[in-house]
């Protein structure tokens, strides 16, 4: 029984079968990659996983609860954090403020919306935020305007913001898309470090095979809206079906 269970999910857009009978189980505390050629249904699947898109049939359960039809903030409160393809950060705010907001949102282990309560413990929040920034090696950038940073730094900040809420599942959507090689490697190192240090499940949707094979413990290959195989990276590399559908083309 995995932490995220996808059962019999079908989704049609008009005449196009975007997802066909998808069954997927992501085990707790693993790094699970979902790969596939363009148009394989990766983005659709991701949107289903975070409840943004409701499938025609099937269920998506996170830790025994359905995520379908929930607001995005409720999904996040269940313990799913999401990293976007283009880093979604608060561009008008400083790095420190960016980090403070998720900590405000989730204090004392629960989500609290109380504005007045937030005002009383601002100091401890700042301390915590600075602590997280130090662990990301970003403490010297804390007063930077976050929109003016490099893509790699924005990604680092975004991941940090997600982690500061102690999510149980971290969803990454092509985390290294559009990044320079050095930034990509930094991001891989950061994710490795996270995997080693925390009890966290990571689901990653990725194009870049270098990233996938350096991180993933399990890989699901999607093709034409359905899972083709699911296995460990070593087995996937040699799998004839995968070569045919995917690696054969890109190699």
């Amino acid at each position, binding site marked *: 029984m995995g932490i995220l269970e996808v059962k019999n999910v079908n989704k049609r857009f008009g005449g196009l079968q975007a997802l066909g009978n998808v069954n997927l189980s992501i085990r707790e505390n693993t790094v699970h990659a979902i790969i596939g050629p363009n148009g394989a249904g990766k983005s659709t699947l991701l949107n289903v996983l975070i409840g943004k898109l409701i499938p025609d049939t099937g269920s998506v359960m996170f830790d025994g609860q359905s995520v379908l039809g929930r607001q995005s*903030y409720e999904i996040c409160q269940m313990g799913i954090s999401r990293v976007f393809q283009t880093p979604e950060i608060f561009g008008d705010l400083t790095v420190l403020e960016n980090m403070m907001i998720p900590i405000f949102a989730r204090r004392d282990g629960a989500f609290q919306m109380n504005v007045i309560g937030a005002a009383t413990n601002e100091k401890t929040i700042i301390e915590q935020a600075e602590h997280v920034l130090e662990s990301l090696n970003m403490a010297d950038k804390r007063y930077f305007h976050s929109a003016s940073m490099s893509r790699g730094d924005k990604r680092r900040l975004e991941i940090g913001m997600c982690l500061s809420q102690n999510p149980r599942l971290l969803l990454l959507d092509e985390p290294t898309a559009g990044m320079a090689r050095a930034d990509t490697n930094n991001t891989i190192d950061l994710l490795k470090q996270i995997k080693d240090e925390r009890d966290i499940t990571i689901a990653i949707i990725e194009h870049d095979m270098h990233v996938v094979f350096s991180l993933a413990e399990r890989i699901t290959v999607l093709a034409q809206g359905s899972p083709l195989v699911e296995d460990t990276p070593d087995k996937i590399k040699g799998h004839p079906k995968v070569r045919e559908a995917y690696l054969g083309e890109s190699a």
Partner: protein
Amino acid sequence: MLGLNKRDFTLLLIVIALAGLAPFLLNPFPEGSAMAQFNAGYPDLMQKFVIYGIFAIGFNILFGLTGYLSFGHAAFLGVGSYSCVWMFKLLGYNVMPGILLSILTSGIFAYLIGVVSLRRSGIYFSILTLAFAQMSFALAYSVLSNPKFNLTNGETGLQVYSNDPQWLHSADKPDLPHLFGLSMRATHEMQLGAWEFQFNVGYYLCAVIMVAAFYLSIRIFRSPFGMMLRAVKSNNTRMYYTGLNARPYTLAAFVISGMYAGLAGGLLSAVDPLAGAERMQWTASGEVVLMTILGGTGTLIGPVLGSGLIKYFENIFSKINDSVLHSWFSFLPDGMEDFMVTIVHPFVGKGWHLTLGALFVLIVIFLPGGLVQGGQKIRGLFTGRTEAEQAAADANQSTPAE
């Protein structure tokens, strides 16, 4: 000091000084001189400066922090005005109950409108607030003014009549708005050589309230709540994926800013006990938007500067007539003089609204950051630093601010 960092405290002191010394500062020209027409230090106008300052400060809490552009804020101003006059009619001319009620009713009103309008964002929100304001205007202008149920007194405007109950009124109190017996109209005049300065009770009451409102707005801007609001403006998606429902925050901001508008409306009635529906018209809503962007959206001091400038120009421009224009351009040859007068004429006197509209367009095109940003650019030219560096330097000085 007072929970503010050094820069904000300095800003507060500047505003206090400006408000306190306004009777001097706004009357720089001696009485009877040719320039005296540019003086602004008389009670009516000074009251408008601070009252519209409150209105704009409140508007800025919504628009400046959350980016939600409301086109219906004049409705709250009107609701505040009506509430205050009703207190005059029922209780008597003491302004305190009126001001308190105007804050309360406009808050309730803002909550109701906010709950509906904030279901949508962006353009939808602007259109919805505009529609609500127009509806309120229609309500005040005709619907709620009929023989069976007369809440607003329609076209004439709501005012106090001699047969109104005024339960708390006693003979020793002035028969005009007063603060515990101190008439709003009481004015102390001071002659200093050729200069004349006027100190008006109504003005100083409004000024004190304005300073308090300004202080509160600094606290809101610097609080975690203010930071949340800026986060909503900056990136709504991330806000939601941080597990936060943005709506309670924006609704709170909307209600607070509606209460500011109601307070301003109440004060308008307190200094002149007459409330008319025209205060709720869309032009009034547009004016407060302009005040805020002229000064600088999202800055603390911007709305205060913007409202002062707009109200000052409104007053000065409205007073200019053709003979004034001819005297200005008299140095030009005759043909040129007439030509210039013809060009300028539509913009002055009754044409103030044309100037306002043109100003609107020009500011949005050339100075979207308002006067404050313009000032920063000029400062940047002198210190040779770019805006980004400036902002970084500013941020380093203050703790989690800016």
